[in-house]
C-alpha cells in the first residue's frame, strides 16, 4: 500500500489522477503478475535445452532416428523373407546320403 501511495502522489497532477479509482486495482494486478512470473522463473528448471537452435537440432535428429529405424526394419524384413523362402525350399536341410568329396 505504501508503494501505491507513492505512485499516487507522483501522479496527482497527471491525467490519471482523475481516474484514481482505477489505479489501485491495476497496480495490484500488475504486481501480482510480476511476482508470480518471477516465482515461476525461480522454480522452473530447464529439463530440455532451452535455445531454439538446440531444439531444432534435437527434433531433426529424432526424425532422422525414425527414418533409420524404418530403414533397418525394412532391411531385416527383407532378410527374414529371404531366409523363410530358403527354408521352404529345403535347401538348408542336410542331405545325409550325399557322397563325401575328397
Amino acid at each position, binding site marked *: 500500500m505504501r508503494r501505491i501511495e507513492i505512485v499516487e502522489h507522483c501522479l496527482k497532477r497527471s491525467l490519471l489522477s482523475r481516474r484514481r479509482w482505477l489505479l489501485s486495482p491495476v497496480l495490484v494486478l500488475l504486481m501480482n503478475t510480476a511476482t508470480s512470473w518471477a516465482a515461476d522463473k525461480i522454480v522452473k528448471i530447464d*529439463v*530440455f535445452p532451452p535455445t531454439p537452435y538446440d531444439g531444432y537440432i534435437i527434433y531433426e535428429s*529424432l526424425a532422422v532416428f*525414425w527414418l533409420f*529405424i524404418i530403414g533397418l526394419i525394412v532391411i531385416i524384413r527383407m532378410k527374414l523373407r529371404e531366409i523363410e523362402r530358403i527354408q521352404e525350399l529345403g535347401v538348408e536341410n542336410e542331405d545325409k546320403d550325399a557322397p563325401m568329396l575328397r
Partner: protein
Amino acid sequence: MNCPRLKDWLDERYDWEGIKKLAKSKLIPEHRYDLWYYTGGITLFLFILQFMTGMLMALYYVPHIDFAHKSIIEIVTKLNMGWFFRSLHHWGSQLCVAFLFIHLFGTLLLKSYRKPREMVWVTGFILLGISIFFGLSGYLLLWDERAFAATRVATGGAGAFPVIGWFIKAFLRGSMDVTGDTLLRFYAFHVAILPIITLCLVGLHLILVQYHGMSVPLSLEKEKPREAPFFPNVFYKDLMIWLVVMGVLVTLTVLLPPEINPKADPLAPPPENIKPEWYFLFLLETLKLFPGEILGLNGETIAILLVAGAILFFFLIPFFDRKSSRGEKSPLFTWIGVIYLLYFLTMTAVGYLS
C-alpha cells in the same frame, strides 16, 4: 558379415558351429497369440537399457541430501546429453513396468503358468515386484518435494501392515522419518542390491523358459503345431519389435522430459494434489475406499491386509488352478484374471483422472 579368420579363431576354441547348430535347433511355436510372447523380450530389452542409462547417471549422481537434488540438476542442465539420458531412464522405467504388467496379464490369460511352468510364473512375478521397488527407490533419489512426500506416504503405508509393519517401515527408512539415511538406503537398493537380485532372477527365468520351452495356449494344444527356429526367424522378429520400442521410447524421451520440482524440505507441508507413480494408483484408490475405522479396527490396516491377500492369491494362481494343470479348460481363472485386469485398469484411470 563374413569374417573367416574370426570364425576360424572362434571355431578352434569354442565349437562355434556347434553353438550355431544349437541356436537353429531351438524351435518356437507359432500361433495367433504369439505376439504376447514378444512382451517378455521387450521387457528384457528395456531392462538392459535401464542398466546402461543407470550406470551412466551413477557416474555423476551424489547420494547425499545436500547434493542429490543439485547433482540431478547438473546432470540435466550442464552435462552433454545429460537431460536425454535422465529422461531415457525415466521413460524406460515407465515402459518397463507397463510391459511387465502386459506380460503378466498375457501369461495369466493364456494360462502359460500351468504345469510344469509354475516356477517361471513365480520368478516373473517376483521380478515385477522388484521392478516396482526399483521405481520407488529411484523416485526418491531425485530428492525433490514430490518424491519426498510420495516416499513418506509409501513407507508410512507399509508401516500400517500388522505385526511386521513397524519393521518394514524402519528397515526402509533407516530412521524415524524419511531422512538422509533413507536416501542412502534407497540408493544402495537401487544401484547394488536390486540389480544383483534382478540379474540372478532374470537368469533363472530365462533358463527355466529354455528348459521348459515356450508354452502353447490350451485351446491350440490339439491343433497341429507350427514351429519356427529361434535363430534367425524369431530373433529377427524380436529385433524389429525392439527397434519400434526404442523409437517410441526416444520419442517420449525427447517430447516429454520429466520435470524437476523444488528440493525436498522435510519441514514444509506436502505439495497439493500429490500422486504416486501410475502403478501405485490402484493401491491408493483402494485405500481411499475404506473408512478410517471398521468395527473398531484401523481401516487402513484392514485395507492393506485385503490388498496383500489379493496379491498373494494372484501370486499363487498356478498352484490353485488344478484344471489347467491337467490340461482342461478353466474358465473360472480366466474370469478371475479378467476381474483383476479390469480392477487394475479402472482404479488406475480413476486415480489418474481424480
